[in-house]
């Protein structure tokens, strides 16, 4: 099954990023495909390459980056990003900034939209 994942909240601040990641790992393990991961609202904060979370905790940014480098398309909404301070130079590798059309396109082309927020 082809899935689009939508994340509405920022990392650490809210559990949504963790749940989305754990869900995605399980979905991939069961042979489903991720069409696109889209970060909207505070979800765009998942894209920063400038964070330095505690060493004894999970690194949410790196986890996303590894999924992105592994071939999953990960997009931060440009309008939400501009409002919040995220820009291309601050993006983790494997994550890109683009428009809301990327969400519409993904939702329409997927079997399921799975929202976390």
């Amino acid at each position, binding site marked *: *099954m082809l*899935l689009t994942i939508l994340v*509405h909240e920022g990392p650490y601040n809210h*559990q*949504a990023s963790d*749940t989305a990641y*754990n*869900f995605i*790992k*399980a*979905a991939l*393990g*069961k042979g*489903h495909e991720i069409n696109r991961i889209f970060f909207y609202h505070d979800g765009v904060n998942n894209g920063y390459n400038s964070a330095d979370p505690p060493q004894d905790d999970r690194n949410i940014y790196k986890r996303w980056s590894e999924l992105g480098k592994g071939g999953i398309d990960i997009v931060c909404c440009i309008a939400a990003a501009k409002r919040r301070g995220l820009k291309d130079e601050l993006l983790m590798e494997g994550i890109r900034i683009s428009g809301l059309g990327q969400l519409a396109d993904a939702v329409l082309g997927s079997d*399921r*939209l*799975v*929202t*976390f*927020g």
Partner: protein
Amino acid sequence: MLHTVNKSPFGHSALDECISMAADGATILLIEDGVYAAKAGASYEGKLKAAMGNVKVAALGPDLAARGITACIEGVTVVDYDGFVELVAENKMTAWV
């Protein structure tokens, strides 16, 4: 339809709203702070049991464990992330975030 609720029913209206809109036979999956609704012996138990006359209720096991919830209301199914994926594979989803 699969509905997910990730807010505590004691602090937020999300689960109340979800229950009011869930069709007969739908599944409500409690995740994150939403799993507090599944806790046995709390004041939401009556409301959840009433809802379970029409809908199925599941709760995410890892979220229950993280919150120290050992006893769920009778009839609540506990699933893991694989079970969550299966529910999504079987149903379209609405998130009551």
